[in-house]
């Protein structure tokens, strides 16, 4: 029965994209937008890239790998800082009072606004891209972790005390497991942001990467490559999200994750 439902879901996912593709082709045929290549042209390009043709002196795989590397590094660093900090801030009202105002003051600054400053401080290249990704990923992970830790149902804390949990073990035994679904939600959002920001980070001073691909394609008006780059980023983001969900599920051995 589940098989049937899965096929149905897949089948229902098809009509809208197909419709959009047809619409796109019609817009191009009707010359309604200047300089826009049609889907046929884009997919042909895509096919050639997959077949090994170089895009700006590097194969598509290399571009994908460089972006993925930056995303994962930035995401990893951000999580290593944000998760422990989020737990501490969630548990300690004093620490929270100390840090909350600053955190909330800096939050509205869009990551893209940090970009020029980062280039000045860190220099052009991969490092500044990674720093931007760290900034972008940091907030959702931090805020969701804090929320997860603060919103542990008081009933569970009562139950833990009633069952004889020593005070110093409550954090590890009850608070963290209860907060995990929120941490996971924060990480999913953060990873999504990371893929968005990698494009921004790669606009300056980087030769390979999907963002670099798009930027260079834009500079030489290769719109077909721009669109190809966009599609590949979308796919990469989608697959990395699925991958992370699968890793979490493996790590938690089928414990409930909240929604997924």
């Amino acid at each position: 029965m589940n098989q049937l439902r899965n096929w149905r879901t897949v089948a229902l996912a098809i009509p809208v994209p197909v419709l959009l593709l047809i619409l796109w082709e019609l817009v191009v045929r009707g010359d309604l937008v200047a300089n826009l290549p049609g889907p046929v042209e884009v997919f042909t390009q895509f096919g050639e890239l997959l077949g090994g043709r170089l895009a700006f002196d590097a194969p598509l795989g290399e571009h994908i790998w460089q972006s993925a590397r930056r995303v994962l590094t930035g995401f990893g660093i951000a999580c290593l800082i944000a998760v422990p900090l989020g737990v501490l801030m969630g548990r300690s009202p004093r620490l929270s009072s100390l840090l909350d105002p600053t955190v909330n003051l800096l939050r509205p600054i869009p990551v893209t606004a940090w970009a020029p400053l980062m280039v000045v401080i860190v220099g052009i290249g991969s490092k500044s891209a990674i720093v931007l990704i760290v900034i972008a990923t940091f907030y959702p992970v931090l805020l969701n972790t804090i929320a997860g830790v603060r919103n542990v149902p008081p009933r569970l804390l009562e139950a833990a005390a009633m069952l004889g949990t020593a005070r110093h073990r409550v954090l590890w035994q009850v608070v963290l497991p209860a907060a995990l679904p929120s941490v996971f939600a924060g990480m999913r959002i953060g990873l999504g942001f990371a893929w968005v920001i990698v494009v921004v980070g790669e606009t300056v001073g980087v030769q390979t990467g999907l963002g670099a691909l798009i930027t260079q394609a834009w500079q030489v008006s290769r719109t077909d490559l721009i669109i190809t780059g966009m599609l590949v980023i979308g796919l990469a983001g989608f697959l990395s999200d699925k991958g992370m969900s699968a890793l979490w599920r493996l790590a938690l051995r089928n414990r409930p994750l909240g929604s997924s």
Partner: protein
Amino acid sequence: MPTATDPVTAPVTTAVSCRGLGKTYPGSRGRTVEALRDIDLDIAEGEFVCIVGASGCGKSTLLRLVAGFEPVTAGSLTVRGRPVRAPGPDRGVVFQDYGLFPWLTVAGNIGYGPRQRGVSRTETRRVVERYLELVQLGKFADRFPHQLSGGMQQRVAIARVLANDPAVLLMDEPFGALDSLTREKLQLSLLQIWQQVRSTVLFITHSVEEAVLLADRVVVMSGGPNHGVPGHVAEISSIDLPQPRDVTSPEFNQMKRHLLDVVHREVAAGAAET
């Protein structure tokens, strides 16, 4: 279980003892709220005591004091002779909303208490199996709470508490969230479990019928901040009917009628006060 007609062959020890027990909360604008006043109650080992009363009369407050979730502000409260200072496995609590840990399996939940006490994994597994059998959930050891019905979750909660061999089993309207069919099944299950384990039970309920069905003694409480009088004990009645009790029998309904009258009389008196 000694009854009024048995010759006393062994000393009946007291499991829970309240003397002049009171609870006051700080209220708004410097006033204090007296939720409970002057509760005198002794619960014997192995006794099943129900507390009934209208909403707000302080029955849950009393349970939370015995559980150690709130500090006592007046009088004394001891469990097996020791004053209550904090929550602990000797006073197991079954909550109306179950309170199971969602990230642990049924076996994980039941084994939680023993593991906290340092019981080995092998021994914990034996304890878990024993209590799974007792609550008749043997096949569900590896399920998670969200995969179980409310009634099953409550049975896990009961097993989880019993696995620590508590001095007293505290139950705060445990069947309130369940539909009446499930509630009846669980009432029966609880009686069967209790007859095997013979814990001391303090059971809070709205339902006079449930109290008459389950308890050796029923404590009727009344008052409460909304009624102008602090929560207090209005009456304590023994239910001398043999188990299993028949809800349709005249004796049962006589008892039920009597207690309902007490409850309603108290509610009316409270309304007159305010």
